[in-house]
């Protein structure tokens, strides 16, 4: 299956993507993740202001069949959540890297991004699973 893995993003092993936006980091789930989940019907988001810890669960995404946990790529504070997903969770399927973004984090340390996978490493991860 051809996967859409944008070269300018960084990825986690749990199939989240991150995009630098000024001093903030935008987080979503990858095309591979949305495709594996199937039709997304529910997204449970943290509150703005919540603290996230790298590698810890911050929310839940549910498809018709499955419940999946969302893990934070970095530690930091939630500054914005994509409230539109509450009414239209299927946006995660149709535009995972765009309108389907999940939240914005102010990282406690920007160096955390260095520990994430680049597109080539994420591609290799998918090929080996």
């Amino acid at each position, binding site marked *: 299956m051809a996967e859409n893995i944008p070269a300018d993003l960084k990825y986690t092993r749990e199939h989240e993507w991150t995009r630098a936006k000024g001093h903030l980091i935008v987080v979503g789930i990858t095309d591979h993740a949305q495709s594996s989940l*199937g*039709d997304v019907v*529910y997204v449970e988001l943290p509150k703005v202001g919540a603290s996230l810890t790298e590698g810890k669960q911050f929310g*839940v995404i*549910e*498809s*018709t*069949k499955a419940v999946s946990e969302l893990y934070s790529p970095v530690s930091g504070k939630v500054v914005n959540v994509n409230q539109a997903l509450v009414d239209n969770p299927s946006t995660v399927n149709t535009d995972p890297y765009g309108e389907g973004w999940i939240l914005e984090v102010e990282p406690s340390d920007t160096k955390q991004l260095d520990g994430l996978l680049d597109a080539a490493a994420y591609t290799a991860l998918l090929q080996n699973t």
Partner: protein
Amino acid sequence: MALRTPLNEAHRKLGARMVDFAGWDMPVQYSSIIAEHEAVRRAVGLFDVSHMGEIEFTGPGALETANRLISNDLVRCKDGQAVYAGLLTEQGTFVDDVVAYRFSPERIFICVNSSNREKDFAWMREHAQGVKPVDRSSDFAQIAVQGPKAEALVQRLTKTDVSKAQVDTYRFTEGEVAGVKCIISRTGYTGEDGFELYCASDRAEALWNALLQEGQADGVMACGLGARDSLRTEMKYALYGNDIDEAHTALEAGLGWIVKLDKPGGFIGKQALEKQKAEGVQRKLVGFVLTGSGIPRHGYPILKDGQRVGEVTSGTMGPSVKKPIGMGYVPAALASEGATFDVEIRGRAVAAQVVKTPFWKKP
């Protein structure tokens, strides 16, 4: 190794996502569960249900033997009629739920759940007084053709008249569909009109391909187990292992209508159900809608005033009803329409309300 239906290769060619289902390698979806669900509600969908088992009773006494094993009544039926029924324990709980077909008093055919096939067969052999059952599961494949355009599609592929006037709901006939000899049964588990076609295993792929090809004009979609589950949940149709099992009686499951307590000869489980009916049912399977946010899932606790009083047996976001819906067993006092309770979702109590079912009604 996982069991495979005769259509396994066909599913892979269509790009289906395959999963293990009760030991069978089955398609859960081809494109999208919601798209497949909607195709069945609006047009027509095909399901491979060849993993279901078929057990046959033939010869003198077949009708009487089989009828004593099931809760419904085949004696009251005509030849060419089928009934939904339970195979019940002495306690009135479910060994399985089945569809029994009366070809004649000397030929009864029972379709059983794949996960229960071996258990059912052993149970039938043990309890059959008279004719012995024969497991014919490997001889048959089964394709469900479901949706408002199912009749038109099947009719174009057969010379047999399959109109409702000839083959009404829960009636069946035999004929060739796309040149393949079939039992053509107006049954299904989606809440839509449609057929279940039983054919010889080695002809299943020819039949499947012909239905897919001819159905193009109708917007036919191959559908997986995911859509089958959401469709049946919207109808509050029970799934064995989730909503019905050996721990809950037919009356608790709200399936009193498939239990014929007055039929001559009786059936296994009758005495327990008569007693329960007289004493009153203490818990009931209800359909509910979440009024708070979340999706109910199998196994989630049902709470009243913070106390656990039951458990969700099935739940989903209903693609047609567009609400989070579920079923579960609750105390009788909480079983009437409008009653409220909470469903515990990841430690959070989410409000729910009992509603009239089926959840989905054709607009």
